[in-house]
């Protein structure tokens, strides 16, 4: 790259700086988390849920389904269907340390793969729900929704932050 023309470096550094600012603005809009307490976020997500087919689960269910200990996280909200024929699920986890995000994401990957394996062949509409699962990582929050209204739930989660 030719950078020996007088002034070009000065112009380029400002251009790059503007791009950096735009990039940070995009990050803030699409990937940032928030400092809102978990209870407030969980409450707003719960209000958006259609609970006809979803039941609130405890830490034991998190351990059973995902192999994760709820005590390791700042907050966990898990809704799941009690019917063995349904894959519906909503999960919100706020991690304590950012490096836990990867563990949670890996656990979700495994869970979705296992569920797909279970439903494949005999409940194709549930496999479709699993394929269309909505996921999001926003700062220290990890979100998963497997439901016909998954997109709506994800929007409620994004809004709650």
């Amino acid at each position, binding site marked *: *790259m030719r*950078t020996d023309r007088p002034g070009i470096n000065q112009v380029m*550094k400002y251009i790059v700086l503007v791009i950096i600012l735009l990039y940070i603005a995009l990050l803030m809009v699409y990937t940032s988390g*928030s*400092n809102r307490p978990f209870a407030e976020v969980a409450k707003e997500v719960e209000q958006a849920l259609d609970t006809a087919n979803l039941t609130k689960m405890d830490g034991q269910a998190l351990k059973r389904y995902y192999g994760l200990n709820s005590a390791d996280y700042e907050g966990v909200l898990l809704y799941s269907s009690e019917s063995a024929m349904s894959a519906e699920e909503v999960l919100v986890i706020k991690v304590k340390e950012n490096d836990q995000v990867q563990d949670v994401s890996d656990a979700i990957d495994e869970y979705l793969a296992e569920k797909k394996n279970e439903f494949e062949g005999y409940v194709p509409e549930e496999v479709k729900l699993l394929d269309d699962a909505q996921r999001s990582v926003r700062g220290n929050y990890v979100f998963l929704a497997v439901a016909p209204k998954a997109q709506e739930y994800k929007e409620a989660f994004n809004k709650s932050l």
Partner: protein
Amino acid sequence: MLFSSITFLFMFLPVTMAVYYIVPKKFRNIVMLFASIFFYAWGEPVYIILMLLSILLNYFCGQDVEAKKEDIGKARRSLIFTVTMNLLLLGFFKYYGFLMDSINAVIPVDIPYRELPLPIGISFYTFQALSYIVDVYWGNVKPQKNILYFALYISMFPQLIAGPIVRYVDIEEQLENRIVSGRKLGQGALYFIRGLAKKVIIANMVGQIFEEITAMQIGSFSVLTAWLGCISYALQIYFDFSGYSDMAVGLGKMFGFEFRRNFNYPYISRSITEFWRRWHISLSTWFREYVYIPLGGNRCSASRHILNLLIVWMLTGLWHGAAWNFFLWGVYYGVLLILEKYVWGAVLDRLPSVARHIYAMVLVLIGWVFFFSPSLGYAFEYLGMMFGIGASGFIDGQAVFLLYTHWLLYLLALIGCTALGMRIINRIIGAFVHVRVRMTAAVVVYIGMFFLSVAFLVTDTFNPFLYFRF
């Protein structure tokens, strides 16, 4: 991507090395650059853009500083702009949440804010970029004209994520001319395997003991268990970070680069001053060259010198993390260094070597409590337990059990903290008279260490590098 991961060891590294050694010499930097970008993007698919933009910004700023050299005022303004932008970027990603939390803690209302996760390695690559820009301004180096070479300097995968912090002045020549040889490849492989073994066999195992102890409720364990927890952390962080640094130095050698060592047996130190000459040498050197000396160093009045030390150590503490415990950890060392310089340094020098060693280690261990604690409150409670306040007795079954079941690990770790460890390995290999037998012995010992490390990796999921979070 972790060095100590199967993906890195058996896919990324062999493929990168094969391509690097096959292509003509003039393409090697490009191979290395693309490998480095891939390596970073593997773990940070979003923040790779930030790193590339940071490279571009610093590249153009470096050229701009050089172009304005004839007008010192303009050059200085260009330098200040670059340093400010780098520090603002680092500050935004690393300290913004901390600042907002601190403000929220003292004002009656909670200001809501958005937070972004910390981009991995940002502290390391920002400091490398700053060293480059300042050295260009001082005239110690010429700005790098080739943007690919500059990008390689900032993003080089062996030291990108957790150091050592390589100063541009140390690597400028190597970016264009370096020796890649079978001998260096072999030496690098030995470094790498030693680092891997330090991390996987020792750091991860003592780390598990530390986790076990600190998972217990404060007040539910004894003084001895509290010390054991602290010693386990001290061993974990040393073997973790120095292991990573050894792997970085080794990988550098394998690709023809020479990085300076980052650790020199810090736990054999007999003073805090000596400890900081041996621990995280690249960071201490950076702060000395770019903060301490420009502030006036020790060539000034005693009060100014004390202020300089406190500034440097506050910054060193905050560099490690955006939290008050890191700040206090830095100030703690600043105060100790001032005391050694102005109060008890002369007395300390007259003490027997063993007493000086105990003095240094006790103070270092106390320092680690601030470092590993999630909050200041926890740090003081834990420290209290180490000195009997709130502990459940002096000794308990937990401590006895941990010592009984892990004595060999602790012994191995303590030997590994000294030069004795290397001497033992070299003695085993050197026991054979014939060169060929000796070489075979070396291969057997190191291959053994490598496969043992891989076996640990496969069976153990506990595998974080502590310095990734900085």
